[in-house]
């Protein structure tokens, strides 16, 4: 005994060490997987209109100026006059660009064209300019809004902040506008208010958590339109419409509600455009209407991932400067969502936000003079250079090689590293710009257009490459950290396996002293054990397919049901086996018989093992029923809620219940709760011991049951979603039944299977869209 206790201590320490290692490895992996990229603090100021220097102290020059002074200062320094005085930023949540611009060369479908007649007429007459503004994953609202106003791509961890929105502290357009004394007004998604708590003069936030609401949520925005369009006091009006996203969440991309919602959006666009053209004569008050969507949606109406459908968002510019140019219908360019930020910044005469990685949209500055166009590109390049310098210390400082001369310009092969490449592209752009300027001064206008084109192209070359590198940098994962995390986790796995093996050996040896024929047991239970192993492996393999992750609930239900069908099979088989051995009257020793019964795990049949006929036994036998109950209830639970991505629209029990109305839901809840309490009390009556502990557990059980009952009776059912307590009790029944199938070797896996099947059966899924955040927003009714 002393030796085994010693092993116990050893085992415990090994296990603790392995678990600690696991935690360490996991945290290393997580740190590596969600990198925190360096961002520049502070806001862009007048210094952004000067070329970046190598001395950071000179750059960080802060002056407190009044907004009026700042505005004139910006005007002087930038040499790019603001083209517009007012901006209407209309965000249509979840609108795929395909609905407006079509996909690739194909125009949008006829239904979509007919749903948005005004927008389509603007596009076809060249009065509006549309872009495919590719959104970066994660395609959820808050990170996308941040990307649009700051031009920066956040890490994946931003998803976590989407539900607990925090104030945007980085440099962004709205703060820049506020600095030059703009009045900002916002109506729509309250995410804006969470991002910018005190910036808006007037605001009316709507909640995006009532996903079923597709009418009021937009009406609450549109009702302000008349007043706001008549008002003169604002410079930036943000309208964020959530209805279209809600339509998608309810009915998917091709929902029948979609055309009507698009028509509503089209009417809003028409109203704003009509309203803004009234002030057309006054250049200071000329309005630019920007219609953007934060992300697209999948066929099922979800979003969050990186598929084409989800990242396919829209940027539509409607204004007086846009319309003067020829712009053919099908030439919509694919750009990045972050490009909106620098474009708007320069169009409205504010510095580009510091962390912006976007590039000026081609075509938006065509109305400016050539000099101004190049100047705008130069400003964008300087801003990106500053950001590059934050990532690459000493970039463009000290290494003169790449700026050396004209000889290098033609030799692309010599450029090996990215740093040199960017350096080369930048210097080429600068020299082209200077060359063009020189020609202008000297009055040589022979091949003016070519020079200009070359300068612009070289600027875009640099900007595109720098932007791409910076955006990759944002999602780059330090491979060393990831690898070390994985290696540490593997080591921990090996340690744990080793411990388990040792434990098994120990148990096996001690068991071997009492059991004469352990081989026979393993033979009989091979089906279960083998399946448990195979099932785990298959599940792990299935996670390699993304749709298997999306539809994981089917995998778990399938595995659980298969496991229980195997239980059923082995139970029947063991019954037949004992019956057969009795039937043939084989003279086996008594221990052998009890062994068979131990195999069948039927404790009650210890007393009745002399009754031989299988059919009567089958009737008497209690152990078949729990398995059958689990199978049947498991199937009901599977049909309770259509989870996942692809088959959400199919009918299920929870939808039926919602249709049936609140009364039947309440009745079912009460019925199932009572049923559940009945089963529980039955289980307690089976407990032999009458200790205080059992009494305490029993009373607390009843207390909680009564409390839930009270809650159901008192609560208004409309705010209880499909994952109501009746579903919970079904899951709990599942667990109770699991307790009765006592199979020591397979028990752990059976519990895992049941737990996961129950988890997914309640309507949970791996999709971000099904995280029920509403629970966090329930307040007590007073």
């Amino acid at each position, binding site marked *: 005994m002393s030796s085994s206790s010693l092993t116990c201590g050893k085992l415990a320490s090994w296990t603790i060490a392995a678990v600690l290692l696991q935690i360490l490895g996991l945290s290393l992996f997580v740190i590596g997987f969600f990198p925190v990229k360096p961002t520049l603090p502070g806001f862009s100021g007048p210094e952004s209109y000067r070329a970046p220097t190598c001395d950071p102290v000179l750059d960080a020059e802060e002056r407190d100026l009044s907004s009026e002074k700042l505005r004139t200062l910006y005007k002087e320094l930038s040499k790019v006059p603001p083209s517009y005085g007012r901006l209407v930023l209309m965000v249509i949540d979840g609108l795929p660009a395909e609905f407006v611009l079509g996909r690739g060369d194909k125009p949008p479908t006829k239904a979509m064209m007919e749903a948005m007649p005004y927008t389509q007429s603007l596009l076809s007459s060249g009065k509006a300019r549309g872009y495919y503004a590719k959104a970066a994953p994660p395609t959820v609202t808050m990170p996308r809004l941040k990307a649009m106003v700051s031009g920066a791509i956040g890490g994946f961890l931003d998803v976590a902040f989407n539900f607990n929105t925090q104030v945007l502290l980085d440099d962004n357009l709205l703060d820049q506008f506020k600095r030059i004394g703009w009045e900002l007004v916002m109506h729509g998604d309250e995410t804006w208010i969470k991002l910018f708590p005190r910036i808006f003069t007037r605001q009316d936030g709507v909640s995006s958590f009532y996903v079923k609401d597709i009418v009021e949520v937009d009406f609450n925005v549109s009702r302000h339109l008349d007043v706001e369009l008549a008002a003169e006091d604002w410079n930036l009006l943000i309208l964020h419409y959530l209805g279209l996203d809600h339509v998608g969440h309810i009915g998917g991309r091709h929902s029948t509600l979609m055309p009507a919602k698009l028509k509503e959006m089209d009417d809003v666009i028409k109203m704003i455009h009509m309203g803004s053209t009234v002030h057309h004569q006054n250049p200071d008050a000329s309005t630019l209407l920007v219609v953007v969507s934060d992300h697209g949606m999948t066929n099922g109406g979800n979003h969050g991932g990186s598929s084409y459908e989800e990242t396919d968002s829209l940027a539509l510019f409607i204004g007086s400067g846009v319309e003067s140019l020829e712009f053919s219908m099908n030439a919509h360019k694919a750009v990045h969502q972050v490009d909106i930020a620098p474009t708007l910044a320069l169009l409205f005469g504010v510095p580009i936000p510091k962390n912006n990685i976007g590039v000026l949209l081609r075509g938006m500055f065509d109305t400016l003079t050539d000099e101004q166009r190049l100047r705008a590109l130069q400003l964008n390049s300087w801003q990106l250079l500053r950001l590059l310098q934050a990532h690459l210390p000493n970039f463009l400082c000290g290494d003169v090689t790449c700026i050396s001369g004209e000889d290098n310009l033609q030799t692309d092969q010599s450029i090996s590293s990215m740093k040199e490449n960017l350096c080369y592209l930048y210097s080429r752009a600068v020299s082209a710009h200077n060359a063009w300027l020189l020609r202008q001064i000297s009055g040589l206008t022979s091949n003016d257009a070519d020079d200009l084109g070359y300068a612009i192209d070289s600027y875009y070359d640099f900007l595109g490459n720098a932007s791409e590198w910076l955006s990759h940098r944002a999602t780059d994962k330090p491979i060393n950290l990831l690898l070390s995390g994985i290696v540490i986790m593997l080591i921990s796995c090996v340690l744990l396996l080793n411990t388990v093996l040792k434990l098994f050996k120990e148990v096996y040896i001690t068991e071997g002293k009492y059991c004469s024929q352990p081989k026979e047991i393993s033979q009989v239970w091979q*089906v279960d054990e083998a399946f448990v192993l195979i099932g785990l492996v298959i599940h792990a393999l299935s996670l390699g397919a993304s749709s298997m992750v999306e539809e994981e609930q089917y995998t778990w239900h399938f595995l659980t049901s298969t496991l229980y069908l195997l239980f059923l099979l082995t139970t029947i088989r063991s019954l*037949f086996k004992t019956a057969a051995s009795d039937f043939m009257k084989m003279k086996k020793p008594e221990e052998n018989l009890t062994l068979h019964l131990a195999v069948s795990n039927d404790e009650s049949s210890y007393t009745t093992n002399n009754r031989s006929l299988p059919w009567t036994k089958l009737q008497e036998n209690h152990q078949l029923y729990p398995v059958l109950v689990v199978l049947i209830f498991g199937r009901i639970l599977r049909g309770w809620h259509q989870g996942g991505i692809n088959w959400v629209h199919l009918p299920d029990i929870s939808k039926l219940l919602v249709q049936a109305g609140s009364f039947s839901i309440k009745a079912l809840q009460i019925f199932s709760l009572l049923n559940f309490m009945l089963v529980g009390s039955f289980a307690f009556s089976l407990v032999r011991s009458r200790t205080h502990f059992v009494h305490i557990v029993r009373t607390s059980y009843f207390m909680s049951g009564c409390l839930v009952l009270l809650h159901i009776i008192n609560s208004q059912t409309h705010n209880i979603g499909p994952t109501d307590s009746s579903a919970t009790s079904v899951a709990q029944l599942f667990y109770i039944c699991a307790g009765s199938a006592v199979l020591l070797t397979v028990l752990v896996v059976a519990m895992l299977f049941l737990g996961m099947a129950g988890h997914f059966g309640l309507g949970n899924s791996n999709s971000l869209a099904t995280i029920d955040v509403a629970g966090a927003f329930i307040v007590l009714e007073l």
Partner: protein
Amino acid sequence: MGYGEITASKALALHFLCGVGLAAGYGIARLGCDLSLVADPARTLRLLLVVEGPVIIGIYGWVRRDREHCSMRFFSVFTGGDSIRRLLRGDCSDFPLILIPLVQCISSGLLSSGALLNAFGAIVLGAPVGLKYWLSTIYWSSLMSLFTFVPAVCVFGTSRTDWQRILAYSKPKEGVDCLISLPAQGAVIGAWLGAWPMPLDWERPWQEWPICVTYGAIAGYSVGMFASAVFVHVLGRKVHVKDD
């Protein structure tokens, strides 16, 4: 013919006939009636059932161990009587007469009891229960019962000891056991594996219930048939070695 003494060549021939039946059913569906499993699973499965059913009942009835235990009338039509032989000779004059007991047999509960078990398994594992799928489910489970349950009933009849033996022992020890249990297990495992592509988002028509499950079952059945022939061969050699 003694029980358990079945030669490998005979087993192979039996399975070959079963496979030919299956292939013929599929061929008739494909060429004769212009049906395919993907386009119209219910009717194709029904046709497969109608063609394969008599083949399997006939073949396994012929293997049947002791005719005295057999309480079901229709066996005599297929095995005692010479209808099959007449049919094989091409004398189709009493074809409807053969069909009558066949219909009787299907309705008599042989297929349906096995089909019930299979349908229970399928539904518990997640087969859809909507009205749209009822017919397919019925035909699919009947076909599965033809693969799993019917051969056993044909061979064992109502002999309780045989049933106990085949259920209690997972490892087949005699030739006929192999002949029955391996293809059945193959069909079940094949169907189980065949269900795995269903949740994938490939949006192919064959991902619908019960199409890929049927494909899986047929593939598994074929593998099982082949394996059982091999097993019978191995077992036969063992017996011979023992005899020597």
